[in-house]
């Protein structure tokens, strides 16, 4: 059951990436949904605006395949604080520290649903 969910989430992630990757010759928007929903990594900002190379991250930190990092058991905030994954730069020196400005990267369930095209608001109808 759990595996099915993970596969579904991965497929959704892949579909999202495929949809938005057409914008440039980079990976587009990556929505990480594990361990929490959801974190948005924007290739647009990191590559086009900030001018990083593919090698900057895809040389040990992240696989090229979207969603691969999420399958690792250590894709957690603790790893980031220790300099892993995003934490390699987001350490408070190169870029803002991983334990600050949470909602800058965490788009949440709301942001993810928006990316999926769901228009759900808190203003329910009951």
């Amino acid at each position, binding site marked *: 059951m759990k595996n099915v969910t993970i596969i579904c989430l991965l497929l959704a992630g892949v579909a999202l990436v495929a949809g938005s990757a057409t914008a440039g010759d980079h990976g587009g928007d990556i929505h990480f949904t594990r361990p*929490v929903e959801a974190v948005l990594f924007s290739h647009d900002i990191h590559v086009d605006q900030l001018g990083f190379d593919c090698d900057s991250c895809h040389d040990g930190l992240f696989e090229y395949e979207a969603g691969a990092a999420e399958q690792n058991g250590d894709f957690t905030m603790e790893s980031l604080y220790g300099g892993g994954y995003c934490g390699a730069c987001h350490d408070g020196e190169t870029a803002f520290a991983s334990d600050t400005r*949470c*909602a800058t990267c965490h788009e*949440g369930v709301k942001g993810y649903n928006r990316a999926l095209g769901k228009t759900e608001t808190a203003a329910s109808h009951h």
Partner: protein
Amino acid sequence: MILKKELDMSRNEGLENLGSEERRHFLKMGLVVTGLFAGGTLLSLSSGARRVFASSGEFAEKYPYKPHYSMLIHVDRCIDCERCKKACAKTNHVPDYGYRTTILERDVSGALAGKREFVPVLCNHCNLPQCTRVCPTRATYKDPVNGIVQMNKSKCIGCLTCQMGCPYNARYFNEEQMAVDKCSFCWESRLSKGEALTACAEACPAGVRIFGDLSDPNDKVYRGIHQIEKTVWVLRPEAGTKPNIFYTRG
């Protein structure tokens, strides 16, 4: 610390406009005024600094319940993973068309650093609840011991005046139970069974929701509010209901 950093980056509008009497008032309550910012960091969550402090100041004087259940929300830690919402719905059988607690999202376009903030909201278990005052049949009431605003569902006639009276949009009509439903700090499902935390507080992976007893000086919530480093505020202080959900950053 984070707050400090953010403050340094925002434009300080100066403290000179703040009267000395107000300053003293803040200090008396054990709160320090670090600045007035319009960029969306400090004051924008609530409608005015003076009213916020006037409200929480009164709390510093007296906590009428034992335990005085309360929640301190570290709003900047919230990442909208909504595990709280799911845990709440599961624990308290909240249907998909309603909610006892939810996360709101605000964009702070003018801010220099973070431009987004998630704001968890729930019943504020006010000391002067308007919902209980307006209920014609006393179907909703404030527990005289622990101060939780409760529902006696068999008495609810569904007039929804409590929904109108609530300044926090904390109530909804549960069609299955044929009564208004609301957050009870998980009293039935958890606290009365000896659990220390509400389902939402337990489910939160980011330490946003600190639940505890405001009448106990050793409690986390008490210590989170009775300090001078960080600003603490409440939502809709002008409604005058003396809420028990506090907000802070950092």
